[in-house]
Each structure stands twice: as C-alpha cells, then as structure tokens.
C-alpha cells in the first residue's frame, strides 16, 4: 500500500469514529444541564479561536497580511448590523483586491 493510501485510510477511519462517538452514543438524548451550560461557553470560545487562527495563522506562525483588512471590513459590516453574507463577501472581496495592489 502506498503512503497516500495508508494515511487516507487511517485518518479517514479515525475521523469517522471521532465524529460518530457523540451522536452514536448519546444521540437524541438531552445532555445534563451542566454539560449544555458548558457548551454554551464552548461556542464563543471555539468561534473566537477560529477567527484568530483564520485571520493571523499561517501554519505555525502568526502573520498580519491582507486577510486582516478584509476581516476588519467584515467586522464593520457586522457592527453596522449588516447581513452575514455581506460581511463574508466584503471580507473576501477586499482581501482579494488588496492582494492585487
């Protein structure tokens, strides 16, 4: 078996299991209130981490590049209570435009 196939099958199998554990073992059941309460905090924590990693992350280093400009423009749309789609389009568009300069 080639390296590519070995990695594909191992990572695929592990990921399928990781994704399935919660829904297969606990699916459809109400979780304990304490756990739901914790997940209420997990959402903003993970989303904030995603924002930071997607804005400044570049492999294993932090950089300030054109993405920041786009994300700040997106943030302005959000702060002005504009639609989510507009924020995403503005962020992508401005980042793309800045890269052509």
């Amino acid at each position, binding site marked *: 078996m080639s390296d590519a196939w070995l990695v594909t099958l191992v990572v695929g199998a592990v990921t399928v299991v990781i994704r399935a554990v919660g829904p297969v073992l606990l699916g459809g059941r109400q979780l304990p209130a304490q756990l739901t309460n914790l997940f209420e905090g*997990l959402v903003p924590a993970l989303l904030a981490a*995603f924002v930071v990693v997607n804005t400044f992350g570049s492999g294993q280093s932090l950089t300030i590049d054109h993405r920041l400009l786009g994300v700040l423009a997106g943030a302005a749309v959000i702060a002005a209570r504009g639609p989510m789609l507009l924020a995403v389009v503005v962020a992508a568009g401005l980042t793309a435009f800045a890269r052509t300069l």
Partner: protein
Amino acid sequence: MSDPAAPVRRATASGGSGFRYGVRVALPIGLAVWAFGVSFGVLARAEGMGIIAPLVMSLTTFSGASQFAIVSVLADGGGTGAAITAAVLLVARYLPIGVSVAPAITGRLPQRFVRSQFVVDESWAVANRGDGTFEPGTLFGAGVTIYVSWFLGTLLGVLGGDFLGEPEDFGLDAAFAALFLALLWTTLKSRRAVTAAVIGAAIALVLVPITEPGIPIIAASIGALAAWRRA
C-alpha cells in the same frame, strides 16, 4: 431548561431554522469550501496521491485543515506517522463538537451514524442556538451543503481543475474568518460569553507559534470552558 420531549422549534442564534435554512445559509460559504476543495484536489494529485485516495479522504476525513496538512507533511517527506498525527490533531475537536450536537442528532443508530459524518465547523456554528443547544434541521442542511461542496471541489481538482487559480486570489481564506466572526457576534449575549471568547482567542493566539496546528483550537476550548465553569 426546556422539556426535551416538547417539539419546540427554536431558531438558531443567526435567526432561522430548518433544513432549507441550513442549505441557504451555507451555500455562499459552500462556494468557498468548493474552491478550497479544488485546491486540495489539485495539490494532492500533484503530490502523487492519485485520484481515488484524495476523493476517499474528502468523503471520510472531510476537514480542509487536516487534509491540507496531510499533503503538506507527505510532500515535505515528513512520513506517514507525522502526517497521521498532524491530521488527527486537527480533527480532534470533533469529539467535543460531536458530543455537543448529540441531542440534535436523533433516530436509529445507523441514521445517527450517517448524520454525524456531516457535522463540520461551519454547520455546527450556524446551527447553534446560543444556549449550548443546536437546531437539528440547520445542522443537517448546512452540513450536507458543505460536504457536497467539498467533495465536488476535490473531484474537479483531481481531474485537473488547476485552471481556476488559487482560492487566496479571490480572498476566500478571509471569508472563513469573517463567517466565524459574524457567527461569534450572534453568540456574545452575556458577559460570560464574551469572557469565553476572549480567553479562547487569547489561548489560540499564544499557542499557534509554539504548538502543532490543531492544539491551539483544542486548548482554546478547554481553557474557555474552565473559565466558564468558574464564572
């Protein structure tokens, strides 16, 4: 706490609910996911992974960060062990994410198993109601949309879609940050939520340069949860 048996259709934090809402809200980001799928397919093919393996990977691993990490490690001669470790670290977050959406994934075991495979960062984020629970229809609709986008992108990529240019040329890498920011905004309804977000962001920022990719995300969730418990 609501009665779990009551058929309450409470909307997501972003306002809508149901499968169709999930599809609609995920379609624009599905376009960006599709473009990165093309990019992954092109790269995987160029690095000698063939055609079928990248497709199987997109159907089973279904994680951009993880799959790009695999190609990058293998291309650098990092070996299969390093590639597997890097990839698994980047999907480890789906363990807590999977537990958090478990109440929203109902039905018999085979159905729950199948539905669990469509859970991805973006669907999880758009389906959240802001109270630690998730809207089933949105979760499934958005998940299927992103899944199909990722697969179709990969398919075009391995079949020679390198004429499209890099997703970065279209600023699509910034689209994800903006999407997550917009969704984050809808969850910041209490002081505790703001605290969790600040701690999550701070932990991720500090750890990105000093740990393997994937660990900052896992650590951010653990750190913020610790703060949440004390609050």
